[in-house]
């Protein structure tokens, strides 16, 4: 059962700015944004294209460092870390899911899931075991030795979900996870994300689709011109849907 109380902040942005120089102009992709995401929350970062949500995702995912301001991931200030330290931190604490899946076609589905563990120095046998377990979790155990391009879009995104879980990160960062999928497979993928959230994972989803944001996220940050315009919260929890998912959850135990 999902814990509602004692939630500690897992991500905190304090007056974060990210400026780019475009010729003589300075583009303020993220302009003085502050936000806090608590452990176990399902958060959406919402905004039209050009609103700065991609930059925001890169900053939260520690792929990029802010021009100004501070970013705390699990209490640690990551805005001043070296490239190598950043790589280690995102490998360990953040699981990425991309719109275009970004699987490596030269590797099998399972090997794709094993790669993040390799960068953390886990032993091959351990990687293999955990990858098999994760492929089972996303219902793709029978397809795990296939190349990604032999899988459907929905299956590929599920492999990507399994990969994002490889190092048991605290945060899953999903960038338009259903953007390349039809409605039905998109819904399946969202189901998996909801399940993960039920298990206690913090999910941060970046999307331009207001319905997707409102239907799934507890907290929605609305971005416009690099600024957080408003924050909305779902008040009444998940209701009946939650019970359905509880049944599914038994599989994972």
């Amino acid at each position, binding site marked *: 059962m999902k814990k509602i109380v004692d939630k500690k902040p897992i991500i905190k942005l304090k007056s974060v700015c990210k400026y780019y120089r475009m010729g003589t102009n300075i583009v303020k992709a993220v302009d003085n944004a502050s936000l806090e995401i608590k452990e176990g929350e399902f958060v959406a970062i919402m905004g039209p294209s050009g609103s700065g949500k991609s930059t925001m995702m*890169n900053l939260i*995912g520690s*792929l*990029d460092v802010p021009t100004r301001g501070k970013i705390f991931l699990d209490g640690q200030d990551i805005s001043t870390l070296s*490239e*190598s330290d950043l*790589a*280690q931190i*995102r*490998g*360990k604490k953040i699981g*990425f899911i*991309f719109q275009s899946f*970004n699987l*490596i*076609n*030269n*590797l099998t589905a399972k*090997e794709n899931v094993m*790669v*993040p563990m*390799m*960068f*953390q*120095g886990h032993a*091959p046998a351990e990687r293999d075991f955990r990858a098999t377990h994760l492929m089972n979790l996303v219902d793709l155990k029978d397809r795990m030795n296939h190349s990604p391009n032999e899988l459907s879009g929905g299956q590929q995104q599920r492999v990507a979900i399994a*990969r994002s879980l*490889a*190092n048991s990160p605290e945060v899953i960062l999903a960038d338009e996870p259903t953007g390349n999928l039809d409605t039905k497979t998109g819904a399946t993928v969202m189901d998996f994300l909801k399940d993960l959230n039920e298990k206690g994972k913090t999910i941060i989803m970046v999307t331009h689709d207001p319905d997707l944001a409102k239907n799934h996220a507890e907290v929605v940050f609305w971005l416009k011109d690099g600024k957080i315009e408003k924050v909305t919260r779902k008040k009444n929890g998940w209701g009946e849907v939650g019970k359905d998912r509880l049944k599914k959850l038994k599989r994972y135990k």
Partner: protein
Amino acid sequence: MITDFFSLALKNLKHRGIRSWLTLLGIFIGVTAVVSLISLGNGLQLAVASQLGVSSSELITIQAGGLSGYGPPGSNVVDPLTQDDVDAIEKLSSVENAVRRNIDSGKIEFNDNLNFRYVGSLPNNKEDRDLIYTSLNIEILFGRLIKEGDSGKVVLGYNFYDKPEEWGGKSLTPGKTISINDNNFQIIGITDKVGSIIMDNVVVMNENDMEDIFGFGEEADIIIAEPKNKDKIQKTKEDIEKLLRDIRDVREGEEDFEVSTPEASLSTVNSILGGVQIFIAIVAFISVFIGALGIVNTMTTSVLERKKEIGLMKSIGAKNSHIFLQFFVESSLLGLVGGIAGALFGTLVGILGTIGINSFMGTELLPDINFLLISLTLLGSFIIGGISGIVPAMKAAKQNPVEALRG
């Protein structure tokens, strides 16, 4: 950890297109050249030596006019050597013995088949004859060698016996009769295989018989001289050269004759081979250099093509050093693949070349497959691949993750 990058690189290499493999042509050619040259080594030396008629004995060979282009030695010579020259050479204090030889091309008939073969003379004197046998490296296989007073008798080279297809399917063996320039001769012996296309096809007979058929008079095609002291063969050679210059009234450097020692001939062989080796080494070096540039090229392209993959790798926790290693290892393996292909092909060329030399020269050489050298070549191509990959791999490692992810 490093083994992971090897297996990752292997998986990536498996999916590489023909374009990547073509860039390995340079390394492939370079390694093929080196490996085939080495495995052919002694075969090549023997082939060149035999072409120049180098024998292993420590005797001096004198010919007029130097090496003639075609035909038996001594033919097409304006001012031939004579019996007087033989006698003069023999009187030199540093010469133990000098023997005259005549060689000509004879019309040989047997079993209604006609072939042209070299016919060589043997002196009547036993001591002189033994000198010739030594100089020609002749040993008997069947029957016996020519003795004093053997008139109307011949000894044949190994191929007369070994190649019946040249004589209407019949082997020439002792006891049979052949016709040489329309004179009948009895075969009394077959010599053992020498491994030289000339010596295995030669007919030898008593010099009186030879004179009767070919009529040389005083001319000598070749003079074989034995030095008194084998350690001073060079000095003996110089004595003979000086004597012949005086007799023939030519100045030093303008000789119309050639005095050759096995050492000198061997050094000729080695200098020819050395030239070939230097040439092949240069070709190999250039090929490998071009091959290295090819790898730089294909790896740079690969970094650009796989920009998105690099971004992804970084987003799932790859440090710059991981990305560097991945491309560096892949590049090294690329070089190694070129090396392996070259080593295999080079060995094949060495083996086939040796088989070719063996069947052409009648020798039984083995290809010189040097595993240490092959390992070193492979290590070299691995290292060259790695060096070629350094700059592209650094480029890959330095990619900004955000930009790289955009592809």
